[in-house]
């Protein structure tokens, strides 16, 4: 019943889905490490990114419109993240984190329903660009080229982010702020600007994830952020909050587990993720690669 090719295909699907989720989880994880909040609006930022891509593709009609849209949407989402941090979240710093979380919860509703009102509630079609259509043969099975492309692009982006955070001067500032904002600010780092940068980066990555995912599921809908948000939460918790490597590792791990569980019993694919999250929270609350957290 389960031949090797089917299992391998599911593993590949799992990795591919995991990389996409890791795009969201990276931002979510960084925001958590720094601001100590879970961003409920992350799923809607993911969805908004896809809608920006769609708008750009509607507005211009040149051969490489998908690629232009991808880049434009990435930067637009960065701008959205910047505005959210500047005008909403910044006011809650120094107060219990619960309030910032509730603001992001309000944002979730505003963005999701706002998109529903502007673009309508009917799903909009978005197809895979012609150049990436078709399949490649990977030994035992054939694999869609677009899936392979998103996997590679996603991995490249995450490695770039990781490299930026671990090796660049600005990245060192981000890590310093995530570790101990007070000391970082006494050392002359403008912590607030670093927060803005992190939030903008997180939003841009989420938007990129949404843009890449949309053609795979055949189109856009304003409610599609909900399920993906829950999965990214799980990935962040399992991987360890504040850790980019953890987000990638847990994303791929959860993606593969989800894919394989779905092979045996389709509805179980979501269920196993929640069990995994529960177990991690109970026995290793800091996550697989996270630092020990207090409080």
């Amino acid at each position: 019943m389960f031949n090797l090719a089917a299992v391998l295909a599911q593993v590949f699907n799992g990795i591919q889905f995991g990389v996409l989720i890791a795009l969201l989880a990276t931002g979510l994880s960084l925001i958590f490490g720094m601001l100590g909040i879970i961003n409920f609006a992350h799923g809607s930022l993911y969805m908004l990114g896809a809608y920006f891509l769609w708008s750009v593709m509607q507005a211009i009609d040149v051969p490489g419109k998908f690629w232009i849209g991808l880049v434009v949407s990435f930067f637009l989402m960065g701008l959205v993240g910047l505005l959210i941090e500047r005008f909403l979240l910044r006011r809650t710093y120094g107060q219990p984190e619960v309030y910032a979380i509730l603001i992001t919860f309000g944002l979730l509703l505003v963005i999701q329903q706002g998109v529903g009102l502007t673009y309508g509630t009917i799903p909009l079609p978005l197809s895979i660009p012609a150049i990436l259509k078709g399949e490649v043969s990977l030994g035992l099975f054939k694999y869609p080229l677009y899936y392979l492309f998103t996997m590679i692009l996603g991995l490249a982006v995450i490695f770039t982010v990781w490299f930026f955070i671990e090796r660049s001067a600005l990245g060192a500032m981000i890590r310093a702020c995530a570790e101990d904002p007070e000391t970082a600010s006494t050392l002359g780092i403008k912590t607030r600007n670093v927060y803005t940068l992190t939030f903008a980066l997180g939003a841009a990555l989420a938007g990129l994830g949404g843009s890449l995912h949309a053609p795979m599921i055949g189109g856009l809908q304003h409610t599609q952020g909900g399920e993906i948000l829950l999965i990214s939460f799980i990935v962040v918790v399992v991987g360890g909050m504040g850790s980019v490597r953890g987000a990638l590792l847990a994303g791929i791990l959860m993606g593969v587990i989800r894919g394989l569980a779905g092979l045996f019993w389709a509805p179980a694919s979501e269920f196993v993720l929640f069990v995994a999250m529960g177990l991690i929270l109970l026995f290793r609350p800091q996550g697989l690669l996270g630092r020990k957290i207090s409080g």
Partner: protein
Amino acid sequence: MILAVVLFFLQVILPSKMMAAEILIMALPTLAFIFLFGYTGQLNFGTGSLFAVGAYTAGILLARTDVHVLVTILAGVFLTGVISGIVGFFCIRQVGLIFALLTLAFNQLIWFIIWQWRSFTGGPDGIWGIQRTAIHFGIFSYNIKPSFNFYIVVLILFLLTFAFVRRLIESPFGQVLQGMRDSELRATAIGYNPKTFKWMSFVISGMICGLGGSLFALHQEYVGEHLAYWATSGEVVMMALLGGTFALLGSVIGSGVFIFLSDLLNRFPSLATAGGWLLIFGVILILVVMFVRGGLYGGAEAIYGWLKERVESSDKQTVTEP
């Protein structure tokens, strides 16, 4: 007592008596949330699933058996107590955000079970065939089918629960809870075991959600799996914030304003189709969090305090002037 009178007239002011009943029913999980969040500092994102457990228990008993209505309500409360005992056992080991995420995970777990257990819970179809009939007390019987009669039952149960929670907060037990919220270390040093207290408060809060759920099954005469989905928990959180999380009265104010406004906004077709009313609630939520932390109740209290101060200071001026 004043609350009882005010709430009695709620059904006269509002467009329908069933809406008034719904407000009081939804005020129950909101009360449970406020009790846990405002008085023990735990952010529970799992109220929706506990509410659903109560609704399904009462709903299944009502639709498939012949037991007494009050027994079904009690069964709903009891079973929710058991379930929240299990959920709480795991969740209270963590604090803050991790606690919130754990309750969210359990919320989805319960939703998943309800959604998948088709033979027992009806899965995506839900429970049909629930009927509000008469409550029999020996030779007397009280028909709860008319909305007014049903409202009275809901009102009595709500007032009893409200009085119970208020009494609980003032009791030594409640004082320990608030002490633990402010400093767990200090409470432990005095000799209280925080885990026991947290667990008990979680179970009590869960049972209140269960009561709300049982009544909701009677109210709707239908139970669906969407109740257990995390969006319901989110709605409860919104109601609590809207009303104010620092006072128990915030529960009924929050659910009242939420349900009344969503009904009102849904009357505009353009808003209803695209879920525009949720957009407005999102904006309200952000504004409340940014400017009026205490919600409507806290905001009203602040204005009242400010006015009182004005009046008092103007009194003083008239005294000192001559």
